[in-house]
């Protein structure tokens, strides 16, 4: 039997393979070894030049793969590696008696701290890039620079920075197990994209894995087994086979609308980020779009998108899904966390608690939202569909009233131009601010539907930054505190007979989907790749079982308990039912 370590699920999948350790720090013993060799200042310069040339080569490779944004990061890192300020600081530390490895790391940390303290979020993000450069120079000093996996392996690390992950050749990364990291870590997003398992927050992993040669990981359960024995290998290979079979069985249900075993309908919708995502969503059997993110129209440009340009994009999405598959357009969810030159937003200390989304209307950007609404009216008229729209970040009743006012004003503007117009616009609000959840009964009298954004609702309810790896235990949307708010939203919506959708990540997680439907949620919207899994999960349970699950979940003490309860209900149906 191997050593078992529990982490948190990051990306589903099962993998077994050799351990590939990534260690950003290097060991104290190795640091002492290098100290004695040659002139430390010269060694440091040579390592910095080598790091720069590695990073330039990496930038070139990534650029050739058609990823220019990533290439830009590595080019800047190449310049940082031989930066005179960084090297002067490191050399000064060496002359003061510090060892080169810790000197370069300390210099990079100091430079990172200066950038992190700047008010500009984009610059602050560069802090991690500098620290990563310091780690790379340190690795070279330690003679560890060639330590990429030579055979397909499972990465075991505290965290895996983008510059390292990008160097692993395609097919050589079987899975990722991290001691740190959050479920939004770069490595986890990479793993989901590659369809390989990822586990985060596995306490004690790097120490325990120091001498392990092989590892088995289950990204769905968060289990890690170091040096698995024959029994473990049999178990994991059975899990891999079961996973493959249940994925195939779930795919066989495609084309059927979402429903519980006893026939209660639950609409399964896709989240899309541009009209180009439509074919993938339709292939996955999406019954419509529960969240059409429109930020792609507003980012990475110097002027606001014109009404005609927006209308073309909305019309493309409306036409792709047709009149029977509603597409819910979310008004631009933008704010101070991204530099949007044409908005002239002031820098904010807490952009996620600042002027963003619907709040922009009262801060000089009313026209921005009006233009978007006019474009949606126009596109719907052209495509011959009834448009569905929702506003993010709605907090108060006045926010909802403002949305309705903007909607009507936009309609009047388009009507004046003589364009064809639908009768109505189905208008909803996102419930992601706790105030909106608390005000649900009153909000429900104003709007046509709710869509709960569980990622932000969790972040705001638990007061825990989504990206902070230290707060993993506060980031699970299955926490009973969040679930009770969701229950209140459903109760408030029911009084006015309006539907409730969920479009956060919880909706795409089979365990989460069962709890949400148990709480009375009517529609689930998730990434197209998640629809098979939630469709199959719902098809295996009855309303009575879901009611029972919801009741126990609301009374539970923490998210782990809720996850285990939902997992037990799911597990009962792990053997896929015959289609």
């Amino acid at each position, binding site marked *: 039997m191997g050593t078992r370590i529990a982490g948190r699920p990051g990306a589903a999948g099962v993998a077994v393979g050799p351990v590939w350790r990534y260690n950003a720090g290097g060991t104290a013993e190795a640091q002492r070894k290098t100290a004695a060799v040659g002139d430390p200042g010269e060694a440091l310069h040579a390592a910095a030049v080598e790091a720069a040339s590695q990073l330039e080569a990496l930038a070139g490779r990534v650029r050739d793969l058609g990823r220019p944004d990533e290439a830009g990061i590595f080019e800047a890192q190449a310049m940082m590696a031989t930066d005179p*300020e960084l090297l002067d600081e490191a050399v000064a530390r060496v002359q003061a008696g510090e060892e080169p490895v810790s000197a370069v790391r300390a210099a990079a940390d100091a430079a990172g701290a200066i*950038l992190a303290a700047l008010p500009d979020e984009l610059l602050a993000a560069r802090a991690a890039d500098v620290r990563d450069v310091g780690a790379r120079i340190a690795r070279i000093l330690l003679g560890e620079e060639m330590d990429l996996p030579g055979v397909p392996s499972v990465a075991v690390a505290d965290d895996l920075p983008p510059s390292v992950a990008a160097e692993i050749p395609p097919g050589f990364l079987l899975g990722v197990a991290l001691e740190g990291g959050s479920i939004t870590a770069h490595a986890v997003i990479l793993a989901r994209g590659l369809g390989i398992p990822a586990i985060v927050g596995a306490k004690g992993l790097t120490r325990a894995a120091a001498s392990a040669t092989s590892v088995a990981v289950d990204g769905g359960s968060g289990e890690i087994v170091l040096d698995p024995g024959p029994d473990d290998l049999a178990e994991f290979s059975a899990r891999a086979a079961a996973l493959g079979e249940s994925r195939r069985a779930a795919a066989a249900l495609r084309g059927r609308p979402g429903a519980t075993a006893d026939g209660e309908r639950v609409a399964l919708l896709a989240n899309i980020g541009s009209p180009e995502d439509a074919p993938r969503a339709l292939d996955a059997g999406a019954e419509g779009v529960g969240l059409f993110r429109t930020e792609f129209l507003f980012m990475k440009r110097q002027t606001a998108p014109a009404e005609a340009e927006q209308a073309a994009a909305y019309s493309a999405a409306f036409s792709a899904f047709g009149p029977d598959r509603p597409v819910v357009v979310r008004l631009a969810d933008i704010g101070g966390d991204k530099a949007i030159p044409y908005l002239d937003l002031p820098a904010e200390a807490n952009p996620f608690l600042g002027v963003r989304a619907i709040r922009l209307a009262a801060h000089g950007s009313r026209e921005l939202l009006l233009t978007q609404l006019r474009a949606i009216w126009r596109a719907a008229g052209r495509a011959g569909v009834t448009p569905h729209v929702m506003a993010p970040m709605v907090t108060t009743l006045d926010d909802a009233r403002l949305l309705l006012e903007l909607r009507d004003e936009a309609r009047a503007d388009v009507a004046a131009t003589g364009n064809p117009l639908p009768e109505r616009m189905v208008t909803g609000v996102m419930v992601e601010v706790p105030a909106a959840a608390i005000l649900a009964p009153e909000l429900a009298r104003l709007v046509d539907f709710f869509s709960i954004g569980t990622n932000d609702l969790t972040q705001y309810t638990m007061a825990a930054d989504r990206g902070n790896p230290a707060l993993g235990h506060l980031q699970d949307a299955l926490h009973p505190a969040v679930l009770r708010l969701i229950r209140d939203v459903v109760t408030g919506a029911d009084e006015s007979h309006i539907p409730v959708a969920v479009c956060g990540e919880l909706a795409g997680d089979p365990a989460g989907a069962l709890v949400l439907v148990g709480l009375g949620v009517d529609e689930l919207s998730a990434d197209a790749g998640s629809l098979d899994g939630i469709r199959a999960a719902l098809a295996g349970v009855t309303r009575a079982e879901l009611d029972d699950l919801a009741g126990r979940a609301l009374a539970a003490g923490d998210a782990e308990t809720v996850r285990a309860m939902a997992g037990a209900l799911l597990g009962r149906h792990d053997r896929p039912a015959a289609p």
Partner: protein
Amino acid sequence: MQVAELDIRNPSGLHARPAATFVKTAAAFRSKVSIENLTRGSKPANAKSLLGVLACGVEKGHRILVSAEGEDEVAAIEAVRKLADGDFGEAAKG
């Protein structure tokens, strides 16, 4: 010593690519070149250091002071001024 006060008009200020362009230009001269963010009131930083320039936090609309001291100081300031006039190769928004 040669100095120039320059207004930054390009959208991303001295971040990312414009910062790299600025540093590469400064590094091509033998003179000591430094940069100060007058708007933010930063300390003078080594203009040949990307980290130094980034730490000035120069955003669109800021005014910077560039100084050069050395044998090619005139040419250095001229080159930097030309970059700023061309908005560091990044289209400026009116």
